[in-house]
């Protein structure tokens, strides 16, 4: 077990209210696997990543409960300095917008080299060679020229490749990718997804892949967790999840994506209503108000994540019926 997250709870504070962004989530990432984290905006998928890396704004957010075990150490108990050592070296992160991770005033090569130097104490020239090698690894054409490019001299797709190169420069054991292809065009997205899958196979890095796109999950991940309103509602290996979704939310999500294999429909099945506010405490299942399966117990008691098959769990009182539907 590489990463073991238990009952993680993160709250955001503003002058007026408390937002319960993460309401106690538990999951694991195994060595070398790709775990997909899917959900719609506000479900807590990005907060999960930032909580693990302890990158949340200190003033407005606090992790109020839970443990994050990485290599048997609880990340929440480490000092800031120890945490900095882990970030980049053992856990790396890439964001949706590549410019978040790139400094516009340094060349791409220098930035990758710097990341290498911080974690390996290599000399400058060795680090620059490594940078060039990394750019070649992420299939940027003419890496010996591109190391001297500034970020603005690159296209969006190439920047995201450079960010991946930077993230992988120190051979991390876990790569957290937060919507890494959402800002890119489809043809470029296809290239980057292929690249991430290839690199993962070559380097054995585990990947936590955060996305809202079920298609992307299906093409890149082995296991998937589905999040809704700050909780994990379903967890399964990717084949089972798409074959027999056990949570009504997962099912609704899959059906509301236009999919040509079901033939052309005039109306898409929609999930009625809107995502609940996380500022007020939620009684019962948070999905109950939008759920076609909801019965009285759903509105009264919050369902816990329970096994509904081998390595398939769902937080739903009626998961069996949902799977049959």
């Amino acid at each position: 077990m590489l990463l073991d997250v238990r009952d993680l709870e993160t709250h955001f504070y503003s002058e007026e209210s408390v937002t319960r962004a993460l309401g106690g989530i538990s999951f694991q990432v195994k060595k070398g696997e790709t775990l997909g984290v899917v959900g719609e905006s506000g479900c807590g998928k990005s907060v999960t990543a930032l909580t693990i890396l302890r990158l949340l704004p200190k003033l407005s957010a606090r992790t109020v409960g839970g443990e994050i075990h990485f290599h048997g150490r609880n990340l929440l108990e480490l000092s800031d300095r120890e945490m900095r050592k882990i970030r980049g070296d053992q856990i790396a992160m890439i964001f949706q917008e590549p410019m978040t991770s790139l400094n516009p005033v340094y060349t791409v090569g220098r930035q990758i080299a710097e990341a290498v130097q911080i974690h390996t104490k290599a000399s400058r020239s060795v680090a620059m060679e490594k940078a060039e090698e990394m750019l070649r690894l992420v299939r940027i054409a003419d890496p010996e020229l591109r190391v001297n490019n500034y970020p603005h001299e690159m296209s969006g797709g190439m920047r995201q490749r450079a960010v991946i190169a930077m993230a992988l420069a120190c051979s991390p054991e876990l790569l957290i990718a937060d919507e890494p292809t959402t800002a890119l065009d489809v043809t470029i997205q296809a290239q980057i997804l292929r690249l991430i899958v290839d690199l993962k196979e070559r380097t054995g890095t585990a990947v936590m892949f955060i996305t809202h796109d079920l298609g992307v999950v299906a093409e890149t991940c082995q296991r998937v967790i589905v999040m809704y309103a700050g909780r994990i509602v379903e967890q399964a290996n990717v084949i089972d999840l798409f074959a027999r979704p056990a949570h009504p939310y997962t099912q609704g999500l899959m059906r509301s994506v236009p999919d040509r294999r079901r033939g052309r429909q005039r109306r898409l099945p929609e999930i009625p209503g809107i995502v609940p506010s996380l500022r007020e405490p939620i009684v019962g299942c948070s999905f109950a108000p939008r759920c076609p399966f909801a019965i009285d117990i759903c509105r009264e008691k919050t369902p816990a994540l329970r096994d509904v098959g081998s390595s398939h769990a769902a937080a739903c009182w009626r998961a069996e019926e949902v799977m049959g539907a």
Partner: protein
Amino acid sequence: MNGPLLKVENLTKHYPLGSGIFKKNIPVIRAVEDVSFSVEAGETLCIVGESGCGKSTVARLLMRLVEPTGGRVLIDGTDIAGLKKDALRAWRRRMQMVFQDPYSSLNPRLTAGQIITEPVENFERLSRQQRNALAADLLQKVGMSPEMMHRLPSELSGGQRQRLGIARALALKPSLIIADEAVSALDVSVQAQILNLLLDLQQQMGIAFVFISHDLGVVEHIGHRVAVMYLGRIVELAPCEALFAKPVHPYTEALMAAAPVPDPTRVRLEAPVEGEVPSPINPPSGCAFHPRCPLAVERCRIEVPPLVPLADGRVVACHVRAPATDVVAKPTTAANSSLSRVV
């Protein structure tokens, strides 16, 4: 009515890079190059393409939010490019737009009711009661409760805001709505709600749509006909079923192959198309797709392929897949001559 509702002929837009009173030969961004299509009443024409292909510029040209460099936009046979201010304002009633971003397209200082009734108030005075009745009616049309009219945009969810954007577009009872990436910023479950709403509105009111999107799944779902754009030009325009059954242009093919499919059992055979979209400042010679095209031959580097009609009602611009015979190449020769006249 005779003829199509909207007819676009050889529409072209070049943006000069930087202003120069003294400089000549300023480089230009060729955002839209010789685009022609038509939309029938009650029909949905989709325009797909990646960023920088010019699809959003086409939307803004249709609305005359930017002035075209060349070409014509005809609504019921009238060229709106030639219209002066007041006449143009009157024509705007026929054609409305739904914007991509449900946040920045609504004035944060106005209430929902004020936002959706404003277009009508641009043309006539409304009493307080009339205004409230109109707002309530419009809100109901887009599936919102009339009480929402007193809310500010910041008090609404993304989906509700996009419904407001649609209500505002409906206010003038247009016969054509241009939707520029209208569902792209929304979550999947909300996206389905909005797409269904658009379909319902089309059925009830017979509104035609020009639906601009980068998402092929959405396009296939909502479109009657689809135009695929690459670097400012239409490369393929076909009835929806025909296009998705069998794409002809290699770019259309690449676009479809690249879209992720929510099926983990599917094995992806084809490698994704290589390279990136070139800059519209200095587009490749000949067919703009040739540097990335697996089928490219010598001719593609030299000659811009004309749009050639095929048997199933589609037009395709590709030397390899749809070689022009002398007879059918006519439309584009006409297009070229009119383009040179404008320039």
